[in-house]
Each structure stands twice: as C-alpha cells, then as structure tokens.
C-alpha cells in the first residue's frame, strides 16, 4: 500500500499536479523577495513590546536620542591644545552640523565656557570664531578645560592627549538603512577630508550609529561573500562526492529554489534580514545539501546495483521516504525551537531555515525526482559512497571494544558534557564583531581613552514641574553622583549638576568657594534661566533635563564591560537608589548597552529552553516513528551527548557562552538527529530481515554510512564557512555547530553501533515490518 502511494506520488498525473502546485507555491513565495531587506538598526534585537526597549524609548522621548557617533581625535606630535588641532576640531565641529540627520554636535570647540568679572557674565563657546585660535589662546583653553568637569573624561582626556567630538543624530526612521548610511558616509567623508588636511592627526570612531552600520556591513559582507562561496562549494562537493554533475545540478536547483522561496516567504512575512539571521541562507544551504545527499546516494546505490535509472529513483524513494521525511521534520522542529528566543533575529533565523527545509522537503518529493528522471545519472562507482562497503573488520573491532566503549567512553563523554554547564553566560557588545572589523578595532581604541558604548542613563523624576530645582532633590543628585563616581566601574558621570554649581559660582563673581548648589530653588531656577538664554542652536539642555523640568538625567559612563559585569553594576546601583532616595523621587534607567546585556542573558536561557523542548519533541517523534519508547529514549544518547560535549569543548576553549551560541543546541539537535534516524532505520530494517545485530550493523554501514559521513562532512564544512563571518555571533555559532556535528558523526560511527547491538536486538513491532517484506527483493 505504502509502496503504491509513494509511486503514485512520483509517477502519475497526481505527481504532475503536485509538482505544479509545489512549483506555484515556491514561485509565489519567491516573489516575496521584493520585500526582503537588510536591517540596520540594533533595535531589531528586541521585540517592540520588550519592556527594556520601551523604557529606553521612553527615555529617548523625554530627553534626546542616544544615537550617536563618537569621534576621537589625537595629534601625533603633541597634546590637543595647539593651533592646528584646535582648528581641526573647530572646522570638524562646524562641518558635522551639515551632515544629514545630525541634530547636535558637542566638542571642545563649542563647549559652553562661562566666566564672570563682577556683574559681567560671559557664556560662550570656547571657540566662537576660527580667528580666535592662537598659541596663547590654546594654552588658556588648556588651563580652563582641565577645570571643567563636564569636559574631562567626556570630551578631553585628563592628560590632554585626546579629544573627542560627540555627534547626536535624530533619524526620521522612515528608511532607517538609508538614513544610517547617509549619516555614516557623510561623517566618513568629512573625516577623510580632515585626514588629508591634517595628516599629523589620527581619528577613531565608535557610537551606536557606527555600530548599526557595522551590523549592516557585517551582514552584507556575509551575504555577498559567503553565499557565492557556498554555491561553488556545494556544486563541486556534490559533483565530486556523487560522481555526477547531473545529480549535483539537481541538488543545486532544489537548493536555490528552497533558499529563494524561504527568503521570499520571510519577505512576505515582513521579516528583514539582520546580522544574526543573515546566516540563515548559509545554514539552509548546508542542511538542504546534507539531506539531498541522502536521497541521491540511495538512488546511486540502486543504480550501482543494476537497476535502471527510472527504477532506481522509484525504489529509493519508495524505501526511504520515511527516513527522508522524518529527518526533514526533526530538522524543522529543531529550527522552529529557536522561536523560544527573546530576540527577534534569532527567531527569524530559525523560521527562515525551517521554511527552507519545508520547501526542500516538498521539492525533494516533487521537483527532485522529476529532474532525476530526466537527467542522465552516471553509473560509475563513486568511491566516496562506497567507503563503507567492507566493514567486517571495523564491526569486529567495535564488537571487541564494546565494553570499553560502553563503560569508559560513554561515561567519559558524559563527564565532558558536564563541563558544558560551567560555561559562564556572557555577552559583550563590542565582541559581537570579530577583531578584523573596523568598528571593533576603533571602538576598542576609543575605549582606552573614553567611555564609548557602555553607560547607563538614570532618569530621576520628581512629581512637579520645575521640580529639579528643589534643593532637596539636588542634594540627593549630588549624593548619588558622588557615590557613582566612587564606584570602580564608573569613568565619569554626566548631568546638569556641575553646570548648576558653576552657575552659582558665576553669579557670585566667579568666586571658587561658591562652586556649590544654590541656596534655594528660586535661585537655582533663575540661574538656570540665565544659562539657557545663552545656549546656541541645537545645544540646549533637553538631552539632560525633561522639557517641563520635572526630571533630570544622570549618565554613568562605564569601562568596557561584559553583560555580567553590567548587570552586577545595575543591581548594585538599584539597591543604593532604593535605600537612599527620597520617596517622592522615582527613577528609571536604561541604555542600549544595558538592554543588550539583558537580552543577552535572557536569550541564552530562552534558547536553551527551546532546545530542551526540541529534544523532547524529537524524542517523542522518534518513539512514534520506531514504534518504541525504548528506541526513542535510546536516541537521546547519540544526540544529546555530542551537543553536551560540544559545550564542554567550548568551556575548554572559551569558557563563556553568548546568546548566539545558545541557539546552537536547538539547531544542532535537529540536524544531527537525521543521521541517527537514517542509521537506526536501516539497522532495524536489517534486523527485520532476520539479520543478526552484527550483520545488521554491517548492512547499515554499507547502505547508509557513506551518506551519513559525507553529509556530516558537508555540514561541518558549511558551518565552518560560517565561522569566517565577521559577525562574531555567527562565527561562533558556525564553529560550535560544526564541532557538534563532528562529535555526532564520531558517535554514529563508534557509539551508536555498539548501543544498537547492545540494546536493540529484536525488532520492535512496527509498520516497518510490512516494509521489510517488500524490501527483501532489493538486496542482491
């Protein structure tokens, strides 16, 4: 019955209709590619409903956006207080205002310097006009700047060797990618000009906008570099391995159609590719090739055994439909499990690959056989597939080693797996990119002098308009500020506090002893009014004070920190605030680097949960397929252990897992379980034909081990290619998955046969039995 069903599926008018429908669905999906884009916003790492993101956006609304480009400038010859460097900073500051989407520029040149002579007060930029810049003036700026708390650590280093320009951007958000690129390329062009005009200076840039553009560039280069390599690799590998150009072209067609359809479907669903999900096509390639290899190798085997090409194709589909379908389904389950992720791009990754595998499954039963019927497959022996034809000796050795394998190797593997639990969960924003990425290099350079990306902004809210001028409130801010400064993580703090004290001094004839808070709220308010009156365009205080002056933002700038350190600091500050703050003050806090720390940590857990669910689902599925809970449970060993060992191995080389890696477990299970399915299916098949367990192992090795090894090697190479990605998350994911697949292969070669021989000695009662009768004739 089953036989006829499969044959009808392949060779009848039904098949033509199925082919037609499948192709139609595929084509319609492919049209969705027109909606496909590449995202350039770090916020796609978060759901719109993510509370962390909402807090951040709320703060961005109250104050100003945190999208910035931070440019560090250094003179090779001296400190920055010289005519040339000051001219550079002045000119660059002026020109940066004209770059698209720039809403604010802060630099040493336009720092609002205030001084008083009796009742005469001057509040003006350090450099109002380029003609002011002389050697003497540079020295007076040096003297004044070193006293300015808002400058030192923020825009100049204490030793005066480095200065920085902070560019704040307000992107309209209509076309984030175009806007980001317009901004970054505008700034880059300016810097290139400056580098030419001022060759004795060095520049380094970092900031969130730069990071967004780095995400985009990393994704784009992965897409344009890795995918062509992948195509060539697949063509060559499949051609060589299968010994048939025709077969490999068939695979390529299925592959490309599945890939485009999956991406197109994602396009219809308005999924934008981003740095993490850009690895989807590469993973799809790898996974689909590996499963196609199984199909074609079955066909080749039939051909070699003397069937006509037509019969060979029919027979191999007929006899292997089940393992092919099951292995596809387990892979789909594994990737769908990534939906447990808190971070959308990782869900996108899982879904896009799952789409691809679904299309590959559909096409493997429609388009692939249709093509194989037409293409002339060579009947020459392919050595690769016959690696395992004479496995007598190997199985003998395995039999002899049965006990050491069972009682030494397996426990040892468990031991290594436990090391996996010692991995520290960690994420570091800069380390999303590998060291070759310009963004990471420059960010690390900047971070040695200033605090570039790592900070937390605290919004301290009162209940009344103009509430920030209350002395009680200001006293608390002062206390909070000085406590923060004492913390080892903090480099510098930014708030209007220093400015307010400075104003009090200014109003009292610049007497240094008046560098303190005003006597009362009315005084503080009036001082501040004076200050606000003097600020030039775009340099208002709205980035630190809410528009109705009911709240103020205090930013703690931190050293480069891992997500763990960041969260520790967050908790420490939270405790302090809860203990010390007056009741009427409420607070909220956020920053891009902080919310990344959170998503990093929570995503690791959510992805591991997903992997666990995938495990259970797959085990249940296998129990059903093999009609035996016993076998279902037994498959856990060859599938779970390699994953565990890979993480144990990771502990030995890295010791830290980040959010991308947690996804490895889910997707690796879906992939490696395929080989177990193919193996056990053939082994049980052998038993049913009355072969002894040992004979059946030999039978299995002959029939399927070649394809298992080859597909595993293809998968390993595919994922290793991913390991060259400049997006470090993808690279690590690729490396760890490929290690997992290698370990799984070794397990399938060494441990699985022994386990099978030991624990599966009789056939479970199953529908497979029906099959075994019909299969009997196919053995020559």
């Amino acid at each position: 019955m089953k036989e006829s069903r499969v044959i009808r599926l392949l060779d009848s008018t039904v098949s033509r209709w199925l082919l037609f429908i499948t192709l139609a669905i595929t084509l319609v999906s492919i049209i969705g590619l027109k909606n496909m884009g590449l995202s350039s916003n770090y916020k796609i790492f978060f759901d719109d409903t993510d509370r962390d993101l909402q807090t951040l956006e709320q703060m961005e609304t109250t104050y100003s956006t945190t999208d910035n480009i931070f440019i560090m400038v250094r003179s090779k010859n001296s400190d920055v207080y010289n005519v040339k460097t000051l001219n550079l900073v002045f000119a660059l500051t002026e020109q940066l205002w004209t770059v698209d989407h720039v809403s604010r520029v802060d630099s040493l040149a336009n720092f609002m310097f205030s001084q008083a002579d009796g009742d005469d007060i001057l509040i003006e930029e350090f450099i109002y006009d380029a003609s002011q810049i002389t050697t003497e003036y540079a020295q007076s700026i040096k003297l004044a700047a070193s006293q300015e708390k808002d400058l030192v650590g923020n825009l100049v280093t204490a030793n005066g060797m480095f200065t920085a320009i902070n560019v704040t951007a307000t992107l309209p958000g209509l076309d984030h990618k175009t806007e980001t690129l317009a901004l970054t390329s505008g700034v880059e062009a300016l810097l290139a000009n400056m580098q030419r005009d001022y060759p004795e200076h060095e520049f380094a840039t970092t900031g969130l906008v730069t990071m967004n553009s780095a995400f985009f560039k990393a994704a784009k280069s992965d897409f344009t570099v890795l995918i062509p390599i992948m195509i060539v690799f697949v063509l060559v590998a499949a051609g060589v391995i299968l010994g048939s150009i025709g077969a490999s072209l068939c695979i390529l067609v299925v592959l490309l159609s599945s890939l485009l359809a999956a991406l197109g479907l994602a396009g219809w669903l308005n999924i934008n590719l981003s740095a993490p999900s850009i690895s989807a096509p590469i993973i799809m390639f790898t996974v689909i090739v590996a499963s196609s290899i199984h199909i074609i190798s079955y066909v080749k085997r039939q051909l070699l055994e003397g069937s006509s090409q037509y019969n060979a194709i029919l027979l191999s589909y007929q006899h292997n439909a089940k393992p092919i379908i099951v292995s596809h389904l387990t892979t789909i389950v594994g990737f769908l499990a990534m939906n447990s992720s808190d971070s959308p791009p990782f869900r996108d990754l899982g879904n896009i690959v799952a789409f691809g595998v679904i299309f590959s499954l559909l096409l493997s039963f429609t388009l692939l056989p249709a093509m194989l019927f037409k293409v002339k497959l060579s009947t020459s022996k392919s050595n690769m597939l016959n690696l395992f034809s004479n496995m007598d000796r190997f199985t003998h050795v395995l039999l002899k080693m049965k006990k050491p394998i069972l009682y030494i190797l397996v426990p040892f593997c468990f031991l290594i797996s436990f090391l996996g639990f010692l991995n520290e969960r960690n994420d570091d924003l800069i380390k999303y990119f590998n060291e070759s990425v310009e963004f990471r290099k420059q960010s690390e350079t900047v971070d040695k002098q200033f605090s570039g990306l790592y900070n937390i902004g605290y919004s301290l809210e009162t209940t009344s308009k103009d509430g920030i001028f209350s002395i009680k409130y200001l006293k608390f801010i002062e206390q909070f500020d000085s406590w923060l400064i004492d913390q080892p993580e903090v480099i510098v703090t930014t708030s209007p506090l220093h400015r307010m004290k400075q104003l009090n001094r200014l109003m009292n004839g610049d007497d240094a002893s008046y560098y303190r808070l005003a006597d009362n709220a009315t005084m503080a308010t009036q001082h501040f009014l004076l200050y606000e009156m003097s600020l030039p365009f775009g340099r208002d205080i709205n980035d630190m004070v809410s528009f109705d002056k009911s709240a103020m933002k205090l930013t703690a700038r931190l050293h480069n920190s891992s997500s763990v350190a960041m969260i520790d600091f967050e908790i420490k500050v939270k405790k302090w605030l809860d203990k010390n703050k007056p009741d009427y003050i409420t607070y909220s806090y956020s920053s891009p680097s902080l919310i990344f720390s959170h998503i990093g940590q929570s995503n690791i857990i959510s992805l591991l949960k997903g992997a666990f669910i995938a495990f259970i689902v797959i085990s249940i599925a296998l129990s059903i397929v093999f009609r035996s809970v016993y076998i279902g449970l037994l498959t856990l060993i060859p599938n779970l252990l390699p994953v565990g060992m890979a993480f144990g191995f990771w502990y030995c080389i890295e010791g830290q897992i980040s959010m991308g890696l947690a996804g490895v477990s889910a997707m690796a299970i879906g992939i490696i379980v395929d080989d177990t399915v193919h193996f056990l299916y053939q082994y049980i098949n052998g038993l049913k034909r009355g072969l002894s367990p040992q004979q059946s192992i030999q039978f299995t090795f002959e029939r399927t081990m070649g394809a298992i090894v080859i597909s595993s090697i293809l998968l390993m190479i595919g994922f290793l290619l991913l390991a060259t990605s400049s997006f470090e998350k993808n690279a690590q994911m690729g490396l760890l998955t490929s290690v997992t697949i290698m370990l799984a292969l070794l397990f399938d070669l060494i441990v699985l046969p022994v386990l099978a021989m030991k624990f599966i000695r009789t056939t479970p009662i199953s529908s497979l039995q029906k099959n075994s009768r019909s299969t009997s004739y196919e053995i020559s």
Partner: protein
Amino acid sequence: MKYLNGFLILSISLTSCLATQAYATKSPSEQGFAVASALDARDLGFQDSRSNIVMILKDGMGSQTKRELEVTILENHQEGDKSLIKFQFPIDIKGTALLTHPQKVGTDEQWLYLPVVNRTKRISSRNKSGAFMGSEFSFEDMTSKRLEDYTYNYVSEQACNNGHAQCDVIERSPIDKHSGYSKQRLWVDKKDKKVFKIEFYDRKKSLLKVMTASQFKLYDNKYWRAANVEMKNVQTNKATTLLYNSITFSLGLTGDDFHRSVLGE
C-alpha cells in the same frame, strides 16, 4: 536699519507702495528682496508696543508646560529696536527681566535682572540661535534682523491661509554663519503683508520647524498682529504656541524706560 518688530516678524502695515507687477522684470533675488523690503517698510512708525504672552510648550507625547511673559519694545531706527522681556510665570522666575540693546556693530548688550539676588547681570553672549526658555522659538526667531542680514530669493506666488489669501513665497538665507538656519521660507500675504507661515531649514538644509500664525488683529488701524503663533519642530515633534492676550501700541515710552536701572522695578 535694525528693528525688532513686534514680538515676531509678523507686524505689517496696511499700505503697499511696491508694484508687484514689476516682479516679472526682476531677477528672483531682486524680487525676493522687494517683498522683504515691503514687509520691512510696513511696520515703520509704530514707536512702541507692549504684549502679554502665554507660551505653551508641548512635547511629542502630549504633555504641556506654560510660561508667561510681558514684552515691551521701543522702536529704534538707529541701532535697532530695544526690548524688555519680563517673566511672570512660573513663580520661581517671576520678576526676572531681560533687557536687550541691539548694536549696529559688535555684540548686542544684554542685561538680566534676577530678583532672587536683586542684582542685574550684564550678559555677554553672541549666541542668538538657541532655544528661548526651552521653547521651540529661538531668540533669533523673535528678533527680526536687518534687511541686509539675509540674501533673498523669490519662489512663487501661492494661495495661503487655507486658500483665503494670496501670498508671495520668498526665501531668505542668513549671512551670519552662527545662525541655526541655512534658510527660511516665508509666505507673505500680498494684500496686508501678514506673514502666515515660515519654514525654517537647519544647517544641513532639512526642514526643522514650521511657524504658522493665525487670528490676525488690526491695531491702531495700522498694524496687523497674530494672536496665535505656533512653532512646530518637525524633527522632534515638539511644539510651542504663543498666545497674545493683549497688545498695546504708542504708550509714549522713551529710552529711559529701557535703561538698565529700571530692571529691578
């Protein structure tokens, strides 16, 4: 000639002496200049004025906050109009006053009186481009500059004021490179020279703010003033509305009323 015309550049007189049909033969910059001079000429001779203004600041999220001020202006053809701004609300800044004496050359002279310390401070700052009291108006928006502070360009003739009027649309670009703007585009009523709308373009030539004026009233049978002026920042979605409660002309003020010694009174 420097003048501070009304609290905004909205002051207009009635009669027109420039023949609009002559535009056709002039270059766009000459046409633009012609419209600007007509606008400038309209307001001559108002002598002085005093307005009570409520300023309502709105953020993008719907919150509001309020300021109240009184603005007194003395027409001064030689140096530019003198202005005195007295802050009345919120209570913490009540009595604070800002006196500005524009200078033909060099920095304007400004004094700020702070009642809390009962002192007048002379402020020296060339910056006029910043936000005024945290609003979307800058000092620059509120003090109209001299005619020759800009270069002009005539754009087109368009229906304006929701189709109720016909406007000359001109562009002007500030000569001062410290201005916050690259250019402004003005919709000037052909008949009464009311300025219905101004678009402000930032230094990178993107639209930054749009000012719209409405509820024009005629004072002294001569000067048109809008009672409601809204400035909307299209980049941040914040907005500020100025509501003119009263405007009085020809109070008979003199230079003495604009001397720094009167600030504390």
